């Protein structure tokens, strides 16, 4: 987690209306510098502003780290609609119509599957439909997408990665 290791400010000469430009800088332990420049009137105490900002900045850095951690673990739940938007139209058609006989018969990708492969897909789709939400890091989701890819039911070999990681 990034944290502030030093803060300082410099005050410029007074402008015609008495205000001064204040340059304030907070150096983080990862090497970044968070800088501010503002016009301060005589009532503003730049040292107090800097101290207050350092406090808030620290809290924000902690909050941002929490968000990044939450987002990066891949566990954000998606609605079925959100997940559907990751699929192409052709892939959505297969999701929706895999069990429809006339579609399955006319679709060469489905027609090429063995009975066992079709059974695997049906089970995977049933699990998907039963889920209240879809998590991309859920083994069931990854297994279904991986299986569809392996069976050639996605648009291309790269699509599984795009759906799960995009």
């Amino acid at each position, binding site marked *: 987690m990034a944290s502030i290791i030093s803060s300082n400010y410099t005050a410029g*000469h*007074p*402008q*015609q*209306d008495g*205000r001064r*430009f204040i340059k*304030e800088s907070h150096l983080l332990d990862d090497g*970044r*510098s*968070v*800088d*501010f*420049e*503002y*016009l*301060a*009137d005589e009532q*503003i105490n730049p040292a107090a*502003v800097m101290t*207050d*900002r350092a406090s*808030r900045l620290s809290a*924000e850095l902690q*909050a*941002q780290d*929490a*968000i990044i951690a939450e*987002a990066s673990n891949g566990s*954000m*739940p*998606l*609605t079925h*609609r*959100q997940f559907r*938007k*990751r699929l192409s139209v052709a892939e959505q058609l297969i999701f929706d119509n895999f069990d429809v006989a006339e579609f399955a018969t006319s679709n060469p990708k489905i027609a090429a599957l063995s009975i066992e492969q079709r059974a695997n897909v049906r089970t995977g789709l049933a699990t998907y439909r039963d889920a209240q939400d879809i998590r991309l890091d859920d083994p069931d989701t990854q297994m279904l997408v991986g299986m569809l890819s392996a069976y050639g039911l996605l648009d291309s070999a790269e699509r599984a990665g*795009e*759906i799960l990681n*995009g």
Partner: protein
Amino acid sequence: MANFYVRSTDGNNTDNGSTWALAKATLAGAFAACAAGDTVFVSKRHSEATGAMLTLASPGTLAAPVYVIGVDDTGNPQPPTVAQSGAVISSTSGWGLDLQGVAYCSNIEIVCDISGSNYAAFLGVGSHGSSTNNNYWLVENGALYQKSAHVGSFIKVGQAASTSARKQSALRLKNTPVRFVNASQKLELMGDFDWEGGTLNTTTVAPTALVAFGSVDNAAVGIARITGVDLSGLAIGNSLVALGGNPGGRAVFANCKLGSGVSITSGAYTSPIGPLVSVENCDSADTNYRAGWFFPAGSVLTETTLVRTGGASDGTTAISWKMDSNADADYPMVTVESPTISIWNDTVGSSKTVTVEILHDSATNMTDGEIWLEVQYLGTSGFPLSSFASDAKSSFIATAADQATSSETWTTTGMTSPNKQKLSVTFTPQEKGYLQANVYLAKASKTVYVDPKLTVA
């Protein structure tokens, strides 16, 4: 083009929406029934709250937007004749709200309660879902409010694409307030955002930084134009733009009221190409000259103390531009660039000399490899084609020479070794037109004051 009616008090999405009596219950219900170019009238008494991801996908197109109008439905006029606010469309229970397609929306309050684990979606335009593109909403005389205090609940324009194809979205607000509920919330831009008139509502909290640019792969470049907006709710400790994020972004503020002590930018540049930030005539005090321009190599700010006698002014207050470079500035490409100074030229076929006066605090002269003037002029007869005249050194490998010294009078309060120099270029225009001058500062960690009043001889 058909008219549709929406009223939550007695509407039903199984009705066809063709009259008030057959009104739809939700805007999404109307969008499902209407087509490009249609108009959707929403009762001022309408109030819908959806406890799920609320996607308002307008079937409108750029050629034929869908028009969503909040109206006075007293007496059930068909069509209504009075636009009136009061209608509220919101997501609740922690869900996001996304505006998609192309629509004009007036007199509607749009509220989003995105929070917690659902923060993958946001309040925004084209901010949710990977398959939408070219979303464009204009919201006028309405409101755009966050309801949740979740730290990551942004108002967002555009999104990261799930494939390598970028998706473009635009949100335009006219006379429409924006509200946040947590200081870390902000406008996160990966698309075009245009805000004309209205107020940043800070009754609950002021955002630490108002605008940020997305920092994810495959996102479109964010652009913000904020004009005539009351931003006085931002105060000491707040900033207009958080630097960082995807490179190439741009934020332009003009004629806005600011809070006292608000900083223009916060953070540090993480890219050599932006975002570029400009703030023109924005202040917390009664001035009409405060401006600032921010680049990865430094900044330019209006100065009122260190000024040239007889130089630029607003008629009352003399001004100069304080050009500050940071350690990254370097000849010839990492520079701080002054705003363009323009002046009309009527002379054709004879030589003109343009001069800009500068002041800095050093006994050592600045050279033509550290600061220079570049003037665009119309140097080709028969076409409006610019030529460029510069007093920079002639090439990268040329030896730098001092810029000329000057005898002009400046206020030099606080300086140890005030040094007055001038930048001049001579050229021969071949067409009437504007001369456009820019000063470039390439010396690292240097402060130079520039009088933005051109002398043309």
